[in-house]
């Protein structure tokens, strides 16, 4: 997509749905929107059927605000809860087969580089723990080993939420779920460790307790993936249904789990760090030049 395809053709304004007109007139496009501005601009996510009080919804809402260029981003997902909201966002969404998200994303990113040599297109995979650590595991690992330049975001609710509560590789040992009645017998998979082994350029783990942090992490992950290599964000996004968390307690749970075992951490390669510093300096120099030209005018 690009901003041009989003704009309404002259004469069609009165036929477009209100929500669409609002998006074009008041959307987050072509500028950096901040988390502190939430509620004052039209977000790219429309109404969707995710459950009330879902931490995954909250995470995705804030994550999409962190995208550096939503008008030039493609998101890939698969079966699982997250796609219910991702498919209602004004961003091209590819509903991959369960298991192949990172294979499809690899081909897509390479294809976009050939098709749009003068315009960076960001590719982001956003899928569940089952989608990425179990059924999509092989494609995820190989995309990392091949150093494919896109971002993988795991929506880790530590269960197969969409299909009624089976254990996933990311469920904690001992956890009793509807479809794991005797408790899970194995440890939670160390996807962060595996990402490290595979040489992923930027790895982050977080819980949805700090909206500004979510947006920053996503922004960094997408930027680093443009130039340096694969990036991986693993977010705790509780399933209040399968884990029976009353919705008013969802944020308490997020804070407790964060304190216990899901604290914020970032692993960033030297190359990625240098790249981020470089773009920060370039941004400052540009702002300075603009200020200087304004003062001169």
């Amino acid at each position: 997509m690009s901003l041009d395809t989003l704009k309404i053709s002259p004469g069609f304004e009165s036929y477009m749905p209100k929500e669409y007109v609002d998006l074009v007139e008041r959307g987050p496009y072509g500028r950096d929107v901040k988390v502190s501005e939430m509620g004052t601009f039209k977000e790219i996510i429309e109404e969707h059927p995710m459950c009330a009080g879902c931490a995954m919804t909250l995470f995705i809402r804030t994550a999409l605000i962190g995208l550096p260029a939503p008008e030039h981003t493609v998101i890939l997902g698969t079966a699982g809860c997250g796609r219910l909201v991702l498919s209602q966002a004004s961003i091209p969404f590819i509903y991959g087969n369960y298991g192949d998200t990172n294979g499809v994303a690899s081909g897509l990113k390479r294809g976009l580089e050939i098709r749009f040599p003068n315009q960076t297109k960001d590719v982001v995979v956003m899928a569940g723990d089952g989608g990425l650590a179990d059924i999509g595991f092989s494609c995820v690992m190989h995309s990392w080993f091949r150093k494919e330049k896109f971002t993988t975001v795991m929506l880790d609710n530590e269960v197969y939420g969409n299909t009624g509560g089976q254990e996933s590789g990311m469920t904690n040992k001992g956890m009793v779920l509807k479809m794991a009645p005797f408790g899970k017998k194995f440890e939670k998979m160390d996807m962060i460790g595996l990402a490290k082994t595979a040489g992923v350029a930027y790895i982050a783990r977080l819980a949805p307790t700090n909206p500004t942090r979510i947006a920053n992490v996503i922004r960094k992950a997408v930027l680093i993936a443009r130039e340096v290599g694969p990036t991986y964000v693993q977010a705790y996004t509780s399933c209040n249904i399968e884990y029976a968390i009353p919705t008013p307690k969802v944020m308490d749970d997020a804070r407790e789990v964060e304190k216990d075992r899901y604290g914020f951490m970032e692993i960033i390669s030297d190359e990625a760090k240098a790249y981020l510093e470089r773009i920060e300096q370039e941004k400052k120099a540009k702002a300075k030049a603009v200020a200087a030209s304004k003062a001169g005018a």
Partner: protein
Amino acid sequence: MYAVAQIDVDICSATSCRLCTQFCPESNTINYDIKRNTAYVAVDRCKGCEICVGICDNLAKHHAIKMVPITEIVEGYEMSKLGFHKF
């Protein structure tokens, strides 16, 4: 029948907090009116989870949000009728 969040404009406008706009899981459901300096709820989008109540009570400590039965809401802001930020 279900309850949706309602924000006390007098309490909210005396602060410049905005925390609830960042923690509601639903997009554009708690919006912020810069002119009146207050957050407000699009009642037709609220799913009644009460996360905003906890944020306002415990994190912001402003106690400006209450859950109110939808049938008792007077002049609630409906996004589907009015669109975004149109009063």
